[in-house]
Structures are given as structure tokens and as C-alpha cells.
């Protein structure tokens, strides 16, 4: 039984991954305060750490080419075990959607529309996302290439515009933070933006030509995104120097300082546009995967009836999830990476191992049967 029949091309899949990770550039403040001027190293470490993780995802997708993550769980852990594991994932997907929505509300509230209540921003945004999700996966991912081009163009413009105020001494000294902070930072970046790619296991069965090139596109998207994030971090560090750790929106402030000429200055609105674009994409993908997961969980034929209740749930959840920004930052820095690591890293790994073992047993059983038959 399949809920979603839409097919997306492998290129769209790749650029979806790019945008998905790139949208987390808002979160750089989480590790800037920990690793300071060495944050760009953290991106490199995180990338290296996540390569085996991606391998697990790709292996899972290859093992069960026609099944989404929830269906894989049913297959691997049996009916009851599979449901228990799936509950974790569904909770995770919903929480991610909520967190990103909350981030968006917070950002718009902090930078552009200061007096508009958060609830209004969040509700309007979820309506937009629900609309795009209603029309399905193709609609959500179709824009990925355009968004990537726009965002990369803006990134290049912003680097050029801030080039005259960059100070490359800001990167020094390298490797002089306590070792702990490198581990902490790497943990954050590998779980918060990078490991979230686990949601793409819900979409993977719908990729055209996945038999041949899924791994290539999966890795490709990941590396492009990591490179873009690296550029963002480098730009912010070079522009802001030791003020990095004080600011809650480093990229926003960096662009605010850009002055190409008297007339082309204060290009921070570009960042705002970009961020809203990104988060629209990311929330749509997350929203889509959340309700797709639920529909696979209950074996419902179409996910569409779930859109309305799920939107309502997400709005309420995102208003109540944190009492304030401080709680958000503390949790994202401290507790969340451990929860996420369990869901993003350990669970898929266990799933893959169990599926290998099952296969091996089956094979052994099969061969022993053959042997006994002979």
C-alpha cells in the first residue's frame, strides 16, 4: 500500500537536502558561543562525523527501496516493535516541525515585525505550508533548485558586500579552545542540522532512478550544503570577530554592517527574505513527512485529511513548547543533541543492523533448508 505516488527527480531530491540543511544557518548562535572563532572547524568535523551516518541512511534506503522509514520499522521490528520505534520518529518529526516554526516566529518577531504577536505569524505561516503540502511532494520539492540558486547568489553578494570589513585575524588563534568545546560543538552541528536528514528516508522511496544514484545525490546534497554553511560561518566570523559570541543572530548583524556604497547598505533584509524562504521549505518538508509518517503508521490511504488537525496541533505545540527563548537556547545547546542523537544516529543504526542480521538468518535458514533438502 502506498500513500504517495508522486515521483520527484533525483536532482530535486539533492537540492532539497541542500536547502534543508542550509536553512539551519539561523542556528549558528548555538555553537558560536561554544567554539567561538573555531566554529568553522566544527562544520568540517561535523561533516566528517556525519559521513558514516549518511552511509547508514543510504544503506537503509537501498535495503528497502520501496518503503518509507515507518514501513521499514514495521518490516524490521515486527508489528508491535515497529510501532514502538515509529512512535519515536513521529514525535521527532512533529517536534522538529514545531521547533522550526517557533524559530521562524521568533526571528520575524525579533527582527522585522516587532509588535506582531507570535501566534499570528506562526498561524499564517502554517497555513501556507499546509497549502503546499496539500498539493503534495512534487510541489514542495519543485522549488528547491530555484531556492538554492537564489540563496547562493545572495550568499555571494553578501560576501562581496562585507569583504571590506572582513578581518582575517579574527580566525586566530586556531585550536585554542578547550577540547570539550570542540566535542560539544561537533555534537550540536552533527545532530541539529546534519542528522535531521533522517527525514529524507520518508521521501527516498519516491525518488526517480534511486536504484542507481541515490547515494550519489544524498552525499552530493549533503556536501554542497556543508560547503555553503561553512561559507556562512567564515563570513560571519571574519566580519564580527569576537562579538560573535554575544549576538543571537550573527548572520543578521553581519549583513547589517555591510556597506558597499552609501546606497547599498543594510542588506540584512536579504537575510530575512532568505530565511523565510528556507524555513518555508524546511517546515513544508517536515510537515509533509510528519503527516506522511502518521498515515503510514495507521495505514491510512491518504495523508490529506490529516493536514488540518496536524496544523492545529503544531501551532499549539509550537506556542507551548518553550516558555521563553532562554529555555530554547539552553535546551538546544544541552539536552536536545542527546535526544536527537538517539533518534538520528542510534535508532537507524540498530534498524540497519537488525535488518542485516535478519537477512543473514534468513539466508542461513534458506541454505540450511537447501542443504537438508539435498
Amino acid at each position: 500500500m502506498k500513500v504517495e505516488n508522486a515521483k520527484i527527480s533525483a536532482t530535486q531530491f539533492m537540492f532539497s537536502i541542500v536547502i534543508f540543511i542550509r536553512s539551519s544557518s539561523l542556528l549558528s548562535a548555538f555553537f558560536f558561543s561554544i567554539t567561538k572563532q573555531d566554529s568553522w572547524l566544527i562544520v568540517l568535523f561535523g561533516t566528517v562525523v556525519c559521513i558514516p551516518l549518511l552511509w547508514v541512511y543510504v544503506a537503509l534506503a537501498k535495503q528497502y527501496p520501496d518503503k518509507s522509514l515507518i514501513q521499514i520499522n514495521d518490516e524490521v521490528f515486527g508489528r508491535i516493535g515497529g510501532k514502538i520505534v515509529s512512535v519515536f520518529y513521529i514525535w521527532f518529526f512533529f517536534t522538529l516541525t514545531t521547533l522550526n516554526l517557533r524559530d521562524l516566529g521568533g526571528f520575524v518577531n525579533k527582527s522585522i515585525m516587532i509588535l506582531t504577536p507570535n501566534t499570528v505569524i506562526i498561524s499564517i505561516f502554517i497555513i501556507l505550508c499546509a497549502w503546499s503540502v496539500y498539493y503534495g511532494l512534487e510541489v514542495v520539492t519543485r522549488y528547491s533548485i530555484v531556492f538554492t540558486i537564489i540563496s547562493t547568489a545572495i550568499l555571494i553578494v553578501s560576501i562581496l558586500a562585507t569583504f571590506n570589513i572582513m578581518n582575517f585575524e579574527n580566525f586566530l588563534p586556531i585550536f585554542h579552545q578547550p577540547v570539550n568545546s570542540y566535542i560539544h560543538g561537533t555534537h550540536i552541528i552533527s545532530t541539529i542540522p546534519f542528522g535531521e536528514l533522517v527525514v529524507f528516508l520518508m521521501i527516498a522511496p519516491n525518488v526517480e532512478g534511486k536504484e542507481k544514484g541515490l547515494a550519489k545525490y544524498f552525499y552530493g546534497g549533503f556536501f554542497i550544503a556543508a560547503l555553503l554553511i561553512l561559507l556562512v560561518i567564515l563570513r560571519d566570523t571574519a566580519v564580527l570577530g569576537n562579538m560573535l559570541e554575544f549576538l543571537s543572530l550573527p548572520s543578521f548583524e553581519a549583513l547589517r554592517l555591510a556597506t558597499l556604497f552609501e546606497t547599498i547598505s543594510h542588506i540584512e533584509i536579504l537575510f530575512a527574505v532568505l530565511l523565510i524562504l528556507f524555513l518555508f521549505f524546511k517546515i513544508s518538508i517536515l510537515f509533509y513527512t510528519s503527516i506522511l509518517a502518521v498515515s503510514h503508521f495507521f495505514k491510512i490511504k491518504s495523508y490529506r485529511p490529516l493536514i488540518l488537525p496536524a496544523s492545529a496541533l503544531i501551532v499549539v505545540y509550537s506556542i507551548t513548547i518553550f516558555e521563553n527563548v532562554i529555555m530554547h537556547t539552553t535546551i538546544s545547546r544541552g539536552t536536545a543533541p542527546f535526544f536527537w542523537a538517539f533518534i538520528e544516529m542510534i535508532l537507524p543504526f540498530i534498524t540497519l543492523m537488525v535488518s542485516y542480521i535478519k537477512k543473514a538468518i534468513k539466508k542461513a535458514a534458506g541454505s540450511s533448508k537447501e542443504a537438508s533438502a539435498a
Partner: protein
Amino acid sequence: MKQISRLFILASVIAAILFSSGCYDIRELDRVSIVTGLAVDKAEQPGNIELTIQIGKAGALGGGENVGAPDEKPVQLIDAVGESVMVALESLRNDNSRILFFQHNQVLIIGEDQARTGIIPYLDTFMRNKESRFEVWVLVSEGNAKDVLETEMELDEVSAVGIAKMIKNHTETSKSLGVRLLDFLSKITERSASAVAPIIKIIKEEDIHRLSLSGLAVFKKGQMTGKLTEDQSIGFSWVMGDLKGGNLSVETEKGSAQLAVMSSSSKLKPVFNKDRLQKMKADITGKFIIAELTGFKNMKIEQVIDLLKKGAADSIKKLVMDCYKKSQQLKSDIYGFGSYIYKYHAGRWKTIEKDWDAVFSNLALEVDIKVDIQDTGKTGKSPEMEGIR
């Protein structure tokens, strides 16, 4: 029929969304007061500050002769006393019929008395507030900061805007240097913990008062420790390598000259003797063109240039050392030597971090100056030199 009514409902909903949204937190010009300048002074009550806000009046500004009453001042000053910036702002809000709008704020002027007491707790508000910007110019006023905002300028009716323009011009001629709030905070929170800000003062000539930028205020850990004169601040710029213009006067025994600075650069290097910091070395390069020559009778231009190069190096050295001695006296590492050592020699920095103040005030500075005179201007000779009789 049903479809048409549905369409109608849809259209009206869309129209409602389009036309009535976005005005949620609208602020019309007649509802806001545009803040152009801020001044922080020490209040008479101990522990309190006096916050003065300069508000530009849109009606009295620029809009031709018929707009506004003829005698109406283009700016309004309001002030309040409070134990913190926010407390003072609150009481200002209560007394004002309009919303204060901070996005166009140009300058933040700190009175000398308050600067000497300490400014860090008051800067926090400007950093945290959603509306304020980091590019605000930070200045220190000789005397009351409020008076500076009160002084009218001849050409720029809003003095805060005039001061912002002045800073830009002066930075080009290197007489003073502009310091933005972000740079200031960045310097204060660095390893060296010292920063500078330009000094603004009121010059009283008969019945005319005008504003003038002169010299730099030196801050250490958020407290003003002393002042640099104009010449010393040029010496400071030479070491930092960010002198972009202005003139250098050179005196030699044969004649004198004014050299226009084209560009300058500087390279710092700490010299270590077996892990002990021995001295700092600064390699300064200056590129000039000749702007004015007097004297040098019966000399060839090549000889003059040789003389000038030597003379220029000497005068730069004097400016640099003068400033350096002053900063050592104030125990304020305004050059950021400490940060520099931390950046390039982080291991060694740990050993001197604790008593950096003592180390800095006894640290020798070796200056190596390279002068390059690139052009002689439109003429290669001068009326007093050989060749013209």
C-alpha cells in the same frame, strides 16, 4: 450560482488579507519621534545617569520655507534621570506623546564625567535593544554631553547628523577616527580590554558655539583613563596602519614641506627572547605625495626627496612614540598588542596574561619606518629651488 458566490467570498477574503494586514503595527510619521542622537551624562544624584535624547522634527526640516513656524527649532531635546538607561527611557516615554523611534539614531555621546566613572552597564541596553543599531558612532564629550546635542550647527540643523558627517570627513583627513558601537564593544571585550573613542568639544567664539572633534578618549575595561591629543591620535593611526589621508609636516634644516598621505600600512610583530616577551616591533610604511615645499634653495629634486624621506620618518617616529608613551602611562593597551599576541602566540600569552598591564607599561616598541614619496604633484620644482630665478 454557487460557484460565483464562492468566488466572491474567496475574493473578499483575499482582499481583506491584502489590504488590512501589514498595518498591524503601523507607525505613521505623526505618531513617532525620530531619535537622532543620544547623550549619557552623570546625574547629580549619585549612581544615576542623565539621558538626553535629540529628536528631529520632520516638519521643521528641509521642507521649504513655508513649512513649520519660521522660528521653530528643527530639533527637540528631552532628558530624564534614572539609575539605568531603561529607567530613564521609561520616564521619557511617559512624558512624550509619541513613540520613540531609535532606528535612525546617529550618535551616542558620553559625557566625560560618566565616561570616567564607567560606561559598560549602560552600553548593554544599546546592545540588547531590538531597535538600536550597532553602527552608531560613539563619542566622548569634553564637558556635558547634553550641551553637545544642544549646539546648533551652521549647515546641518540636526547636530547629531552633522556630527556623523563630521566624523566621516575627519576620518578621511585622519584628524580623528570614527568608532562604531560594535568596534568599541569588540575592543573592550578583547584580550587587551582597551578602546578609544573620539572626543568632541564645544568651542565658544564670542556668541557662536561650534563643535569640534579633537583627539581620542582612552578607555580601559569600560572606564575612561585619559586623553590623546590630536597629534597623538595620528601617531596611533600610524601604528594601526589605517591612516588614509591628511598631511604630515616635515621640517629639515634646509626647508620644510607638507606631505599628503596616500596610504599607510603597518605590521606588528612581538619579539620573544626564549619565551619572554622582549619588545614589540612595528614596521610602518607610508606613501606620500608632495603637497607643499618651502626652502631647499639651490637643491636638486632628488636631494630634496632624500632629505624629505628622512625628515618624514623622523616626524612619524616622534608622533608614534609620543602616543605610545602616553598609552603606557595610562596602562591602556589601545593598540591591541595583547590581543595580537593572544592570536598569534596563544601559548605564550597564557604566561603573560595575568600581569599584562605591568608587562605592557614597560614594553619597548621598536619602530621601523619606510617612507615612499611617489609623486611631486603638478610641478617637479619649486620657485625657491634651483632652476627658477
